[in-house]
C-alpha cells in the first residue's frame, strides 16, 4: 500500500507542476502606458458619488493623461479601474497620474475597485 500511495502522490505532484507551468503566466494588470508626443490631459474628481472627468471626450490612439484631484476623492474612489483599457491603479498625492492610450472608440466606464463610484468617458 505504501508504494501505491507514494506512486499516486508523485503523480499528483507531477500533474500540479505540469498544469501550473502551463496555466500560470504573468499577470495582466497594468497601470497604463507612457505617452509620447501629443497627450490629452483630463482632470478627475468625485462629485456626488460620481467620477467627473473634464474633459470627458478623448481621441482614439492619442495618449491620455488623467490627473486625479486627490483632495476631491474620498475613500476607495482613489482605487481606480478602467477595465476596457486594463487600467487598475490606486492614486495618491505622490502619484496622481493615470496614463493610457485609448485604442478603441465608444463610451467606457471608469469605476472604483468596488464599483461604488462610477463615471464614463467617450473615445471618438
Amino acid at each position, binding site marked *: *500500500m505504501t508504494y501505491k*500511495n507514494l506512486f*499516486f502522490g508523485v503523480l499528483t505532484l507531477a500533474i500540479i507542476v505540469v498544469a501550473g507551468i502551463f496555466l*500560470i503566466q504573468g*499577470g495582466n494588470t497594468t497601470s497604463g502606458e507612457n505617452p509620447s508626443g501629443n497627450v490629452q490631459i483630463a482632470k478627475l474628481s468625485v462629485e456626488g458619488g460620481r467620477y467627473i472627468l473634464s474633459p470627458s471626450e478623448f481621441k482614439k490612439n492619442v495618449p491620455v493623461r488623467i490627473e486625479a484631484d486627490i483632495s476631491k476623492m474620498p475613500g476607495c474612489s482613489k482605487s*481606480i479601474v478602467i477595465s476596457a483599457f486594463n487600467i487598475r491603479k490606486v492614486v495618491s498625492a505622490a502619484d496622481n497620474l493615470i496614463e493610457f492610450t485609448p485604442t478603441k472608440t465608444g463610451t467606457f*466606464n471608469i469605476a472604483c475597485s468596488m464599483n461604488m463610484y462610477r463615471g464614463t468617458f467617450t473615445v471618438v
Partner: protein
Amino acid sequence: MSFKDFVKSLNNDKVEGELVKTIFVSLATSFVILGILYFLMLRSVENFIPKYGFYLFFAVLSYSLILLSVKHVRAYREFPCMSGMLIGMTIGMISGFLPGFFIGATNGMFWGSVVGMSFGILFGTWNGKCCGVMGAIEGMTAGFMGGLMGGMTAIMMLNDSLRAAAVVVFMVSGFILLGLNYMIYTETREMERKHKDGEFFTIFWSLILTIITIWFMVFGPRSPLFQ
C-alpha cells in the same frame, strides 16, 4: 492519535489510505477536461491563459481538496453534533469562499458571490447533515457567508495583490481542510466505515465543478467592472 499517526494513516488500506488517490483522480479529471476543452475551443478565446489560467489552476486544486474532505465525511456518514456542525461549517465556508474568490476575480463580485454561495450552500448542507438539521443549517449558513466573502474579497483585492492573495487564500484553506481531515480521523478511530464511494464519485464532481467554473469564467455573465 497524533498528527504523525494521521500522516502515517495516509498509507493504510482504510479510508485515509484512499485520500491521496482521490486528490490524484480529481486533479487528473479536471486537468484532462480542461486540456480537451482548451484544444477544442478555449484556445481561440483571446488571452485565455493569461486571463483565466491562474484562477482556473487554483480553482481545480481547491476542488480536489474539497472533494477529498467530502469523501472522507461520506465514508463515516454519522458524527456527533459538534463535529457535524464543524464539518458543515468548514466545508460550506471553504467550498463557498474559494470558488467565490476565483470567479469574483474574473467575473465580478455579484457572479462570484452567486456561484460561491451556490457551491458553498450545496456542499455545506450536504456534508453538515451528517449530524442532522443543526449541521445542515450550519453548512447552509457558512456556504452563504463564504460565497459572499469570496466574491467580495476578490474585488477588494483587485487593485492590490490579487494573485498573491489567491495563493495565500488557497494555502490557508488547504491547511484548514487538512485540519478537518485530521479531526475526522481522530473522531472516527472507534467507528466502522459506513459507505464507500468509488472513483466515479470523484470524477463526476470534478467534472461538474470544473466545467461550471470554466463556463462562468470564460462565457458567463460579468459585472460592469469586467465588461
